[in-house]
């Protein structure tokens, strides 16, 4: 199915990385961050400081999902276990060996993958630490290994600001990716939907691998959030109450394919360093959970004046430039200027710089829509009551009345939340609406509160 999205907006942010690798970083420390896994409520550590681990050795698991291990991306020594308030587990830090030792898992020939037993596949994925790549919709939490999804969706197009091209991230990994698709087919009785860019130059090897049985290819075009998997689900197989589908990032899919072909948890990934504050936007080859300090060393940033974000500017989270680590699901670092200065009469003085999707007195950015801009972290205003109507919907290509859904969440009205489509949304889908919101409300946080209410119910 081909989908052409009209609603949305591509934020013209400065600092995209040219598609070429600028070195490898595989030294120092890396970490597995418990906060990357939303399902974790009662983690149980299985290592302590001083233990040596291999790539793929379990570090901790959650007592609710005892089968699902969270494993080390590299071999080395556990040097620190960081805890937050009330001893909440934050991250397990590993000092990497020079040469990676892999814990070995069963490996299979590519043509045998389609014959594997579902339980065996689940068992290997859970033990290897790759299971948490599988995200369940509704709610955007880790998939439950005990459930059977109606379909699995993979979006191999990323339209978020300064996003990487998946054809470059997965360059030369066609076999692993294809193997991953075969594994996914073992996990669901339904189809595996692979959505890719409608632009032929950005399709890479994806059309070839989608020739597998029960893999359905979709081509999408349009501005952000056209690449969001949630938007694809809405148009291809909308979920109502009781439906469950799983989603997966293509980089995670590649790791899964490699696990079954080679019998190793290879956490290698290409990482883009982007953003207006990056001195040299670039790509590095590194591993999951790498230390931020290592990867931003070349960027000459002042930690006071620059915000380091693991992920993109819409959905990522800020990390400490000294002590932070890359998020499990992320393959992008964005460096943004901290704009923490008051602006004299900033609400009325004319500006050609200030980017806005809206039209208003003195906002002239629309005269030069393609100019790449240095956008900082300022709120550009204060939080206000919802006044404008019909504005968010221009940035959400779904048949959802977002204003009413948000109000239902604030009113904690469970029936309304359900009827208005909370099952179809997670934070990333409405991040663009939040960016454009004139009332400066934190819509993603409100939506997560609603999702948490529904999950608890």
């Amino acid at each position, binding site marked *: *199915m081909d989908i052409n999205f009209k609603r949305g907006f591509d934020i013209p*942010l400065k600092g995209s990385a040219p598609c070429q690798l600028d070195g490898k970083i595989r030294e120092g420390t890396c970490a597995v961050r418990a906060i990357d896994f939303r399902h974790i409520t009662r983690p149980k550590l299985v290592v302590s400081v001083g233990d040596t681990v291999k790539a793929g050795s379990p570090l901790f698991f959650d007592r609710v999902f005892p089968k699902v291990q969270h494993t080390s991306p590299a071999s080395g020594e556990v040097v620190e276990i960081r805890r937050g308030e009330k001893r909440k587990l934050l991250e397990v830090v590993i000092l990497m060996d020079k040469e990676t030792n892999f814990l070995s898992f069963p490996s299979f020939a590519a043509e045998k993958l389609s014959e594997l037993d579902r339980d065996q596949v689940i068992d290997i994925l859970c033990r290897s630490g790759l299971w948490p790549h599988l995200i369940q919709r509704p709610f955007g939490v880790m998939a439950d290994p005990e459930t059977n999804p109606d379909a699995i969706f993979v979006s191999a197009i990323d339209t978020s600001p300064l996003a990487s091209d998946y054809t470059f991230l997965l360059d030369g990994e066609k076999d692993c990716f294809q193997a991953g698709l075969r594994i996914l087919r073992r996990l669901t009785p*339904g*189809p595996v939907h692979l959505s890719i860019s409608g632009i032929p130059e950005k399709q890479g090897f994806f059309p070839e691998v989608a020739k597998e049985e029960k893999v*359905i290819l979709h081509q999408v075009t349009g501005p952000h959030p056209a690449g969001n998997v949630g938007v694809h689900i809405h148009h*291809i*197989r*909308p979920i*109502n109450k009781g439906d469950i589908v799983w989603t997966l990032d293509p980089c995670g899919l590649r790791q899964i394919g490699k696990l079954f072909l080679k019998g190793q948890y290879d956490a290698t990934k290409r990482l883009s360093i982007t953003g207006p504050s990056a001195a040299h936007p670039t790509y590095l080859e590194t591993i999951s959970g790498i230390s931020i300090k290592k990867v931003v060393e070349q960027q000459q940033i002042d930690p006071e004046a620059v*915000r380091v*974000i693991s992920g993109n*500017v819409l959905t990522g*989270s*800020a990390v400490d430039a000294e002590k932070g680590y890359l998020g499990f699901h992320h393959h992008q670092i*964005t460096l943004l200027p*901290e*704009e*923490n*200065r*008051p*602006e*004299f009469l*900033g*609400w009325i003085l004319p500006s050609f710089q*200030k*980017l*806005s999707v*809206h*039209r*208003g*007195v003195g*906002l002239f*950015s629309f005269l030069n829509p393609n100019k790449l801009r240095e*956008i*900082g*972290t*300022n*709120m*550009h*205003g*204060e939080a*206000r*009551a919802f*006044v*404008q109507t019909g*504005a968010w919907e221009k940035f959400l290509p779904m*048949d959802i*009345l977002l204003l*009413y859904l948000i109000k239902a969440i604030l009113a904690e009205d469970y029936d309304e939340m359900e*009827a*208005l489509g909370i099952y179809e949304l997670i934070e990333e889908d409405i*991040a663009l609406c*939040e*960016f454009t*919101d*004139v*009332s*400066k409300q*934190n819509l*993603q946080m409100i939506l997560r509160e609603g999702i948490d209410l529904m999950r608890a119910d």
Partner: protein
Amino acid sequence: MKFLEKIVHAQRKHFREGGKLARFYYAFEALETFLFVPEHTTPRSGSVHIRDGMDMKRMMVTVILSMVPCLIFGIWNVGHQSYLATGVEGISCATKMWIGLQVVLPMIAVAYASGLGVEFIFAIFRRHPVNEGFLVSGMLIPLVMPPTIPLWQVSLATIFAVLVGKEVFGGTGMNIFNVALLARAFLYFAYPSEISGDSVWTYIGEGAVVDGYSGATPLAVAASTVGNQEAVPVLDLYEGVWKTGLYDIGNLFLGLIPGSVGETSTLMCLIGALILIGTGIGSWKIILSVFAGSYVMGLIFNLIGLNEFMLLPPHYHWVIGGLAFGAVFMATDPVTASHTELGKWIYGFCIGLLTVLIRVFNPAYPEGIMLAILLMNVFSSLIDHFVISSHKKRRLKRVPAVS
């Protein structure tokens, strides 16, 4: 500006918790954020890291800008009508503006002072930031008042509208009724002699009116035919008005007629509509459907034809009275209008229908747009309710596009 920034920020400590003036914090904050957009940055996680450059203050200023053509024309027209009525000719544009300014500026000042006073007092006692919504209401209120209105009534109406129309519902964004229209409706019911009849719509000042002068507005002239078996067609009455050509269609469209300060000129309202629609702040669906609704009702009345007002060509309804002003600036108030896109069509269309209906059937007070909008303010949530119900049903019936 560093210098000013330092001075202002140095005052902050007095208004912080524990400071001497802590209870006035939100009043201080309102003034501070008027001077400086604050240094607030986006949260470090769970939210977007960059934000759009538009904020509520700029949006409201844009709405005020869209009213400026109506305001300037209205000021001039107050002077113009005054000299027409007294029969003085050869008066310069500047002099007419000067007369108008003397009438209109005090009204604006009183409306803003009264309304913002209430807003600040509520912000201080209810401990919430001052919202910008009143910046628009405060400009709308003088524009929908007759030029002869006593200033104390402007003040009283504004205070009533802000208090009962807005603050008791929880403040900006929570109100059911359009604040400016509520101010006008308050005066209409509390002090009808100052806001209805034939003598309030023209500012006369010191002079004496010419022979044959009548202050009846086109709407009042049309309404006078209702219930009168021997009435001549309304258009003949317009032709025979005391000043030749005063109620020609061209004059009506331009707004060179007596009426409330800012609402006489359809042309100026359309310029405002262009700004509102061009910026996307006002809903073109509402504006268009108000005009469409009134035209349809006018046509239906043409077919029934019980009296001469019913037989008025429908497009005349667009240029007499405050229909255009109400359609562009009042019906589009996003808080009190329907919030769903389909709802906006229905909401606007019903306002148009009701306006003409009230004009023809309520000759005691023929200005229908005010009551029509206030009535539809009440029904806007109901319209939304039905639109949302059908939306929910449609969502349940969805089937996979690909299985």
